[in-house]
């Protein structure tokens, strides 16, 4: 876990135009942001594209980023990722269900993990997008309520309500299956 002070120092250097510093920021956060994106998209190439777009947007808007005691740099980054994801879905018209084979691609290196958690992934897909996002951020990305609220542009109470409903809904789906 990298200290926030170190991150802020890298951000300042990146703001001054140092791409190497921004590259280090990418190295630190790309895996977790990718994990968030892939869990929602389940398509490797699309997730990589959106990851790249997220970081590019962050680079172009670094000047507007202000350190905040309530929101770390990662919060701002996840916020960009979340909205880029929403934009992506809004502009996509044709749809068809992702086949299991596409999921297998992600798990090809760990097929036993796919088998173990396939039912959970299938159940998560049935939740509404906001519920999927809140569960992903809160419990897979391990973010706090305040951070999640900031990323999803909701109040903390709103996030608590949402996560409560999402957990209940997920549980019901799993029990019915």
């Amino acid at each position, binding site marked *: 876990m990298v200290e926030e002070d170190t991150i802020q120092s890298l951000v300042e250097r990146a703001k001054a135009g140092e791409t190497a510093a921004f590259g280090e920021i990418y190295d630190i956060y790309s895996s977790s942001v*990718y994990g968030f994106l892939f869990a929602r998209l389940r398509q490797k190439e699309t997730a990589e594209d959106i990851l790249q777009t997220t970081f*590019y947007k962050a680079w172009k808007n670094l000047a507007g980023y202000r350190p905040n005691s309530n929101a770390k740099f990662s919060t701002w980054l996840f916020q960009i990722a979340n909205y880029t994801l929403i934009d992506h879905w809004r502009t996509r018209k044709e749809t068809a269900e992702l086949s299991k*084979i596409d999921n297998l691609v992600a798990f090809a290196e760990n097929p036993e993990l796919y088998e173990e958690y396939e039912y959970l992934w299938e159940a998560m897909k049935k939740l509404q997008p906001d519920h999927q996002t809140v569960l992903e951020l809160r419990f897979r990305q391990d973010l706090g309520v305040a951070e999640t609220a*900031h990323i999803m542009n909701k*109040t903390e109470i709103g996030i608590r309500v949402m996560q409560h409903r999402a957990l209940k809904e997920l549980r019901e789906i799993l029990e019915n299956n």
Partner: protein
Amino acid sequence: MKLFDFNKKDEQTIKLLKDSRLNFSFDKEATKGRLLNQIAHGEPEQSLVLPRRRVLSYSLSFAMIAVLIAASSTIAYANSSGPGDKLFFLDKLSEKAVIALPMPAPAKAKIEAGVAEERLNELDAIAEKIEKQDAKQALVKTKAIEESQAALTQAIDNISEAQDKLDSKGNTEASKKLNSVLVKLESLADKNKETAEKIKTRLTNEDEKGKLESRIEKIRTAKKKIIDRTERKRIKNLQIEIDKKQTDDAATEDEAQSEIIRLRK
């Protein structure tokens, strides 16, 4: 806040979510390379508008919920997309991902044949529209031919390799089944050579015509490969049957001879 404290069942679900956390593999360095390249080339600034949070902005909350509900909750790509369509690259990438999976060669060969068939069928669908397209559009379609020819050649090579492996292991039944896939590909190749030639007449650029002709030639070569291979297998199977029959006949003759000798005694 007690109202939203986790109960025992919630805790079990949360544990499940946390246990299912995985580090997904992705091309981290390649993506970084593309990102830094994009930064270096200073592409047009993308607007970033992050909504400001307001404590009592119910209308904004409702608007956001409406947007999310309106957006598809099914994450997807269109498998019915074809060359030239926006989502075709997703279709192809997905196919490549499947083919890259570790699996037995015959299964992979069948999947590749399926991919080749799909590419060739997409080409047919394109040809139907070709009457209404102008020459510029036809250029896009030459890419489709390139795709279909490449898929066809790849499928044939891999099916042939899979067949050889099966034959060497004595698994003739499985090898014969792959043969029927080859025969199907042969008829598709015929159909699509015809389509490619039709598309060629729509092109006005000589360079493009030349490229298309070379693709058509490759389809011809692929077809010839199938014919040669199926013919060789047919002859080989025939030879095996003849040998078997001769062995059986010899055995029968031996039996008959033994019987005659026994009867004479």
